[in-house]
């Protein structure tokens, strides 16, 4: 089993590993701004600080043969699914060590072994693709499922509507997860969308739907499990709305000054990492001392990852000419 599949298995089995992965994501995202400032990263990037429970909770419920389509805000989901921090940060830094050899970048992480489709930078772009993956499972009669993760803002794009309707009428094994982090870029969701509970839109397709607390990993696991079981057993698609909050700005440059006063602070009280810690301490699985150690170990680990990626070579010019078409003709006849 590859090291990355091991990483995946870890979060599937163990609550401590899940917590550690959340810390890994937090630590990882925390490094990004500094790397921008130092010129090690260019372009743009979209952090998922505050949304770690959704990423890890989701990954803990899926099998590696399930398929996930996610978005440019995908570092956390990639790490949660098992991609190594080197392959994620390497990609963000445009290095050969990156999961895409450096030609993709922050918005386009992928790893087919772990079931992560290339993440899409087009709002709604990944949704019908996930439905298509589910279609292939249905035709081949496997019991794998496809998951599409997308933002609150994405519920206003045509692809959302078309995909949910198609998935419903074809009864596809797909789970739609709307990561409602309250903002789409600099727009609060209520300024672009007349509806507050976005999952209600599933009624338009007679599709089961519910909201869950996306800050609480146990809630995420419970809700996603319910939908995944339905999908695996021919019960068709589900729309889940995970109520989360984006602790950072939309992308690199954004300071999120448009937030109403006190909003961030209110959500920070429900920081998914804090909630997980409380739960693990309450259950006796962890103690405060160990938490401090884990965080400090993870800090060191990620710092090493940064160093490794910084030392990793730049891609050579030939690499931009590769992987456009499939080599030779691997068709059947």
């Amino acid at each position: 089993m590859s090291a990355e599949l091991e990483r995946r298995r870890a979060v599937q089995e163990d609550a401590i590993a899940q917590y550690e992965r959340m810390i890994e994501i937090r630590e990882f995202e925390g490094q990004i701004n500094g790397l921008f400032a130092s010129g090690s990263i260019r372009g743009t990037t979209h952090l998922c600080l505050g949304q770690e429970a959704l990423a890890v909770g989701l990954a803990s419920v899926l099998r590696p043969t399930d398929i996930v389509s996610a978005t440019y805000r995908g570092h956390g989901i990639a790490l949660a699914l098992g991609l190594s921090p080197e392959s994620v940060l390497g990609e963000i830094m445009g290095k050969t060590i990156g999961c895409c050899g450096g030609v993709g970048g922050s918005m386009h992480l992928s790893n087919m072994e772990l079931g992560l489709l290339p993440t899409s930078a087009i709002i709604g772009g990944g949704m019908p693709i996930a439905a298509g993956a589910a279609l292939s499972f249905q035709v081949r009669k496997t019991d794998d499922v496809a998951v599409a993760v997308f933002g609150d803002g994405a519920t206003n794009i045509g692809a959302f509507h078309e995909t949910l309707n198609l998935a419903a009428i074809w009864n596809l094994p797909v789970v739609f997860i709307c990561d409602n982090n309250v903002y789409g870029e600099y727009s609060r969701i209520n300024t672009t969308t007349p509806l507050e509970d976005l999952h209600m839109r599933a009624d338009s397709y007679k599709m089961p739907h519910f909201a869950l607390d996306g800050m609480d990993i146990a809630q995420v696991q419970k809700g996603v499990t319910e939908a995944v079981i339905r999908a695996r057993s021919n019960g068709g698609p589900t729309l889940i709305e995970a109520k989360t909050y984006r602790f950072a700005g939309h992308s690199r440059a954004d300071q999120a000054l448009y937030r109403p006063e006190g909003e961030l602070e209110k959500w920070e009280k429900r920081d998914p990492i804090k909630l997980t810690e409380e739960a693990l301490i309450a259950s006796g699985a962890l103690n405060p001392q160990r938490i401090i150690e884990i965080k400090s170990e993870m800090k060191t680990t990620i710092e090493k990852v940064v160093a490794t990626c910084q030392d990793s070579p730049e891609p050579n010019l030939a690499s931009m000419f590769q992987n456009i078409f499939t080599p030779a003709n691997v068709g059947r006849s």
Partner: protein
Amino acid sequence: MAITTPMRFRQAIVQALADEMRADSTVMLFGEDVAQAEGPFKTSEGLLTEFGPLRIRDTPISEMGFTGAAVGAAIMGMRPVIEIMFMEFLGVALDQLVTEAAKMRYLSNGKLSVPMVVRASVGSGLGFGCQHSQTLENWVAATPGLKVVCPSDAQSAYSLTRSAIQDPDPVIVLEPRILYAERGDVDTSLVLPIGKARVLRKGNEITVVSLGQMVNVARRAIETSALDVELIDLATVVPWDRETVLTSVKKTGRLIVVEEAPQSGGWGSEIVAAATSELFCQLKGAPFRITTPDVPVPYSGVLEARFVPTADDIARQLIESLKTGTTPKSWWELEGLK
């Protein structure tokens, strides 16, 4: 000797789909009214009956949704074929081809392929009006990662459709709608690889490159002109067959592209520009394009008949260009209409 069967263009497509579906259980077809109704242009006759509702499916009117579904199914190892009833409808779904499918292999570091086929009917001539008659090759032509083919007769409809389905990458098949009812002889063992042009007529004086419904018109023009013209059916628009075209132009020293696309922005510019850049010193006369005018496709039968180049137009321009070495006027310039 090759065994050929007479059939209509649309039947050749049905046959190609059926043959591929028999050979490969991952091939499937979906689109609006392709299953129960057997296709708005009857290009899926009998398929639902033979292959059943798991593989032959009607879709809602959701081009973005089902085009994207094809991308996803292809990534996971199916070979979906989708039908876009009129090429214009990709205007609501182009994203999935140009910005998703074409980039997927690149963005997976070569770990996945997207063996999907998009069949879209194109072109003018049937009185469908300006929103249902464009060819629109340009929407997909400048996209590394996509292949684009366009059959011109029943044989190439059959063979290119099979090649497209067998291809490991996304292929768009532009089907000239006006040809669906045309008859031709089809040799089902003939392979037409993607990226290979067809030399339909050998000649030494002029190279004519054409595509789709214009191929036959160009052929008629050449026959009436009584000139020694080499006629090439480009067949694949992307990646086009530089070798065949440039070899021919090297020989003849003259290049004329006959196309249904508009004068501004049509695919033929690519051929003329590339041939000129590479073979400038070997050209004996101005290479040029014979195109449709820069107007929306008009509805009236009288106007639409004049919209595409006619065999007479083409013959006139062939003869004149051979005589003068310069680019003859288009019919609308001659008539002072623009």
